[in-house]
């Protein structure tokens, strides 16, 4: 049991920080521009594929730098030449545009790299067991992922709270017009934030792509979960996104271990479930571990219904 908890905690931390890398950019973009970027997980996917391409030709370490940069440039391009021109049609049009980007990027990835997963592997240098405690192995790459995500978190925190650009971003979150009046180029700030958010998602792709899997469906699989994180944490709130990332990750990781169903619960009370087929039979037989996929969405829907601001959000829209 202790072993399970330890392992789950580590997995939660890794998965949660990976989610945070994606959700931090998304929530900042939403907070600043009121744009829900449907294509955010596509940047994650692009990061993984760029890293695969760079690491097969040059190596993993250059990929760690160049892939996020490349994704950031793609993000800047999309913001400058696409998003900015649909801005005049309103938020729904912006959402539709990013949805289109998501769709096209998916197809482009298939076009260039094919439908099957690519062999983007963990670098040999980090492919060993760092330590093992109580029968649980902890690989060096996981430690590396933790290191990268924690340092990313620190840098982001520093950049937002201590640098000039960060202060402008913070001000623009709440008072965009005032910031504009003070002579700052708000659209340019938007562009940087969009590019920065894309680069962060790309970085998540670089370190997550080889840990999980690099395939064309990865954006579709992770994208909705990132939305869940942003909504649960509160749209536009960085701290909220951090808390929610860990929460959702814990929810999904720990659910795997519980193979308890309603009929087991009934059995505890001495009631044996009728063995008839049909819908109620299914309902009684669902194990908690089976609900892993649906749990975040249930959580999000309930959150939006009962507390639309999210855990730490300040506004409803």
């Amino acid at each position, binding site marked *: 049991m202790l072993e399970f908890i330890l392992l789950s905690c580590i997995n939660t931390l890794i998965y949660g920080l990976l989610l945070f890398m994606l959700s931090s950019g998304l929530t900042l973009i939403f907070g600043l521009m*009121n744009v*829900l970027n449907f294509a955010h997980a596509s940047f994650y996917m692009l990061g993984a594929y760029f890293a695969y391409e760079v690491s097969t030709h040059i190596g993993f370490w250059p990929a760690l730098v160049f892939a996020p940069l490349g994704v950031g440039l793609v993000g800047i391009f999309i913001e400058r030449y*696409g998003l900015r*021109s*649909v801005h005049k*049609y309103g*938020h*729904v*049009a912006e*959402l*539709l*545009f990013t*949805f*289109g*980007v998501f*769709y*096209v990027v*998916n*197809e*482009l990835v*298939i*076009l*260039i*790299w*094919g*439908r099957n997963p690519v062999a983007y592997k963990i670098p040999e240098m980090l492919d060993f067991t760092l330590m093992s405690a109580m029968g649980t192995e902890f690989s060096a790459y996981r430690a590396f992922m933790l290191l990268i995500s924690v340092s990313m978190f620190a840098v982001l925190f520093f950049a937002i709270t201590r640098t000039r650009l960060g202060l402008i971003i913070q001000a623009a979150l709440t008072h965009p017009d005032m910031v504009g009046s003070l002579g700052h180029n708000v659209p340019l700030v938007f562009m940087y934030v969009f590019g920065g958010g894309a680069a962060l998602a790309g970085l998540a792709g670089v370190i997550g792509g080889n840990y999980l899997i690099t395939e064309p469906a990865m954006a*579709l699989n992770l994208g*909705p979960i990132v*939305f*869940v994180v942003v*909504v649960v944490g509160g749209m536009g709130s960085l701290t909220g996104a951090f808390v929610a990332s860990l929460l959702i990750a814990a929810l999904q990781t720990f659910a795997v271990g519980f193979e308890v169903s309603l009929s087991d619960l009934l059995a505890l009370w001495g009631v044996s479930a009728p063995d008839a*087929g*049909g*819908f109620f*039979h*299914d*309902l009684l037989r*669902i194990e908690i571990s*089976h*609900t892993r*996929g*649906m749990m975040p*969405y*249930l959580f*999000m*829907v309930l959150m*939006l*219904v009962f507390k*639309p601001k999210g855990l730490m959000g300040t506004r*409803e*829209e």
Partner: protein
Amino acid sequence: MKDNTAASAMRPFVVKSLAILAVVAIILLLPQIFQTRFAQSLLNQIGIAVIFALSYNMLLGQGGMLSFGHAVFYGLGGFMAIHTLKMVNNGVVPIPTELVPLIGGAFSCIFGLIFGLISTRRAAIPFALITLGIGELIASCALIFPSFFGGEEGVSANRWTDVTLSPLNFGRAGEVYLLIAAWMLVCVFLMYLLTRTPLGRMANAVRDNPERARFIGYNPHMVRTIQFSLSAFFAGIAGSLFAINFEIITAHALGMMASADVLMMTYIGGVGHFFGPILGAVLVTFLQLVLANITHAWLLYFGLLFMCMVLWAPNGISGLIMLHEPVWKAGLFKKLLPSYGRALVPGLVLFLGVIILVEINYHLSLSTNPESPMSLFGIEISAQSAPPWIASLLLMTVGFLFFRKAAFQVRDAWDEVTRRMRKGEH
């Protein structure tokens, strides 16, 4: 004199009725004209898509609600219909096949009411997110409730029964077409009437200014909820027809990609006019079935078309058509034609360049042997050699440059036409 005015007042009505009758006749005669199996299947799917897209537009176009989970109701209706058919097959209940869509629709409508209540308190982004969440939720439910959703392989039934109202027993695709066409006409008519009811008008009002609607005593949440559940009803009918047509339905029918399809279809057709989604459904389904046979890259072209629409024609094809209505009436359409012609040629050149680039890339990444020669427009080329790449890049550059130039000419022509139309009015 009096008779004369009455007659002239009657004339538009008569013309309209005749036009509607003609359309109905054409729709019913279509399978006689196109008798291949492929055409039959295409017509059936177009009919279903028309209902589905129109029901989606009740949300997006008329109610201002961007849903990412509309296929949930399509799928739920379809599953209900297939279970009903199964029960008819087993002799449990004698429900005529013609009325099965009604059951699917009602089932979806109930779910529409429940999900509508919780999702429509606010429109725009929160609504989009809740529908996305509900969509994912139901899609993941599909795997843990195999008794209703049939797990991976779905649920199948036999549509060929003797329990029918009409002499048809729906064994052949042609007979199913009649069923689909009849339901399509009824649904299109009903959805059109709905736009004319106070509810339809209030949905528009709530879309444009919810605060003001609330001020004059309407609850936007209620209006949206009713609109949402009615839209779910029609989506359920479309899903039921899908189930009857294919005799099988799987969890794919209610997934994210199905929702994306109907969203893009509706948007490409245009959300601003009632007939827009019909155009979108016909065009996209046609392209889907025809192009999917020709090229693997169909989805990419589809996505690019969608992006172009979002960027440059936010009112879709119907919007583009209706833009020209006043110009046509003023008799100035021929002023625009030369500039359109000049834009069309470089546009096609640009498109050709894109096609070549996409196709050679697809050949390289997806074919079993990339070295093998591929054929494009009947010409054998080798994807590895330089000429097709150079040709494609050249075509794209030249096409783009001239297209840009032509786009300015189109704008000038439009300015000229608008100026003359304004002059004509005063």
